[in-house]
């Protein structure tokens, strides 16, 4: 009986670890191939160890130009959609009002729309009203689908918040603005930062919606797509590895800080 139970417990554990390994496998390949010196143009199989790509990231100017375009778009998208999305989230969680169901439906619909349709419908709009495609149309398109993700993440944080804290502040004669400034906002902040991180990574990585509305602008994913046929240079792997390791580090630092804070407060 004990052994059967042990096996059952361990199976679940081993299975979970295998799923994590499965999710990580392509990342390992990306990082490994960033140290590769490809034989031909295609960097798909191991040839020879080299640090060339790491020491010479911007040898091909177009890679770094595409990268900086994506960073610029990503930052703007993050700021705008985090503000707009957080506002919706506060309305949905902190208030009961007529049209609340419609609001959440309208927020959910972009999440449930395939990216080709989002991209195609915006392209149809821009073509019909003769707006030239480029930097700004990419920005508009990306904000449209990141808002909903921001709402989902901030909602999760706000829903877990104890409403008694706000009531206590009000009871102690805090104005609504003070309550928001000193109680609600600090509690919601980790959720808002997580939402910002998510919208940046969604924007930075977006290919489908962007490619419909990009015109001649080349973002980092669009560069990769174009290079995929000719062979992706290892420098692209270097940038992807840096982005991946950087965001892991960011999450790690953030969780350490919040753990420290909790420890010192208690």
């Amino acid at each position, binding site marked *: 009986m004990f052994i059967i139970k042990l096996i*059952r417990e361990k199976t679940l554990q081993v*299975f979970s670890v295998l*799923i*994590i390994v*499965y*999710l*990580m496998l*392509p*990342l390992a390949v*990306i990082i490994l191939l960033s140290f590769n010196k490809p034989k031909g143009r295609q960097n*798909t*199989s191991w040839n020879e160890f080299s640090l060339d790509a790491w020491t010479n990231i911007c040898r091909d100017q177009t890679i770094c130009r595409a990268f900086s375009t994506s960073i610029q778009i990503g930052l703007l998208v993050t700021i705008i959609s985090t503000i707009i*999305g957080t*506002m*919706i989230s506060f309305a949905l969680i902190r*208030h009961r*009002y007529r049209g609340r*169901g419609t*609001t*959440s439906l*309208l*927020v*959910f*619909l*972009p*999440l*449930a*729309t*395939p*990216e*080709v*349709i989002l991209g195609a*419908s*915006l392209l*149809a*709009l821009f*073509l*019909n009203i003769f707006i030239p495609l480029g930097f700004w149309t990419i920005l508009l*398109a990306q*904000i*449209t689908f990141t*808002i909903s993700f921001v*709402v989902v993440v901030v*909602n999760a944080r706000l829903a877990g918040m104890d409403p008694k804290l706000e*009531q206590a502040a009000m009871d102690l004669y805090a104005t*609504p603005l003070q309550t928001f400034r000193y109680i609600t906002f600090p509690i919601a902040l980790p959720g808002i930062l997580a939402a910002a991180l*998510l919208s940046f990574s969604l924007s930075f*990585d977006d*290919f*489908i919606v962007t490619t*419909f509305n990009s015109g001649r602008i080349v973002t980092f*994913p669009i560069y*990769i797509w174009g290079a995929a046929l000719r062979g992706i240079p290892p420098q*692209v792997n270097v940038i*992807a*590895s840096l*982005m*991946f390791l950087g*965001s*892991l580090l960011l999450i790690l630092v953030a969780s350490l800080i919040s753990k420290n804070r909790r420890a010192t407060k208690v």
Partner: protein
Amino acid sequence: MSIAQESIITKPTRRRIKRTPYLLILPGIGWLFLFFIFPLSTLFATSLQKPAGISPDDGFLPAFKVSNYSSALVEYYPQFFRGFLYSGIATVICLLLAYPIAYYMAFRARKYRNLMLVLIVAPFFASFLLRTNAWKTILSGDGIVVGFLNSFNLLPQDRILNTSLAVVAGLTYNFLPFMILPLYTSLEKIDPRLIEAAGDLYSPPSQRFWKVVWPLSIPGVISGTLLTFIPASGDYINAELLGSIKDKMIGNVIQSQFIDLRDYPTASALSFTFMAIILVMIYLYIRRAGTDDLV
């Protein structure tokens, strides 16, 4: 929130609280109307247009050409069907893979829970295109996976790349986190004491699962399925990078009609039909679960 608590907040400042939510949603709702709802209606209008000349450069004229729909569907129904088939299979596999790990995180993982969550979201931080491309290396003819499976004669075509198997595998990989996260959220809400209580009442483990855990996790199953199936059915990157010409899905058709061929009415008709099918699915979901659990 109970009625008593709510009246404490709303009573003294009823007037201002009534206006606040509308001010809060105004920018977002305005944005979504302008750049989501309005474009969809433009898409519909475009789907009925007729060409002004012979080449797409001549532009298109407003019309009510319903035959755009019938001719597009007659020509592209195999890709439509394939899109839904591949993403359907991938969704089922995702559910089978995601449920155990979501269950483990919700009830067993304890202090490793957050680490596991980070690792599940981590792939999002490296390029989607590069990850899909990395599967080319993993599944290539001289790689371990193909060699291993071939030594047991498990592959009918002796390869994985450029087959429908690779497309389904790529979709499964790319959308698995979208299944795990909602499942985990709904499993984590289950009070473990309910399961203990069932055990105390002599219900065997399998019954404890099917009578207690599974019914309570249904909202997670439904939203995970939607969040996996819908983006997967419209994806064209996996079919393009991992599949052969015979594996093209509806996303590939819409993309090439729009961007390469610039036959906007046909592309719009296909997109709008696709959107209509998805709206029906969402409607069925809402009828079952309501709008509260949507986001």
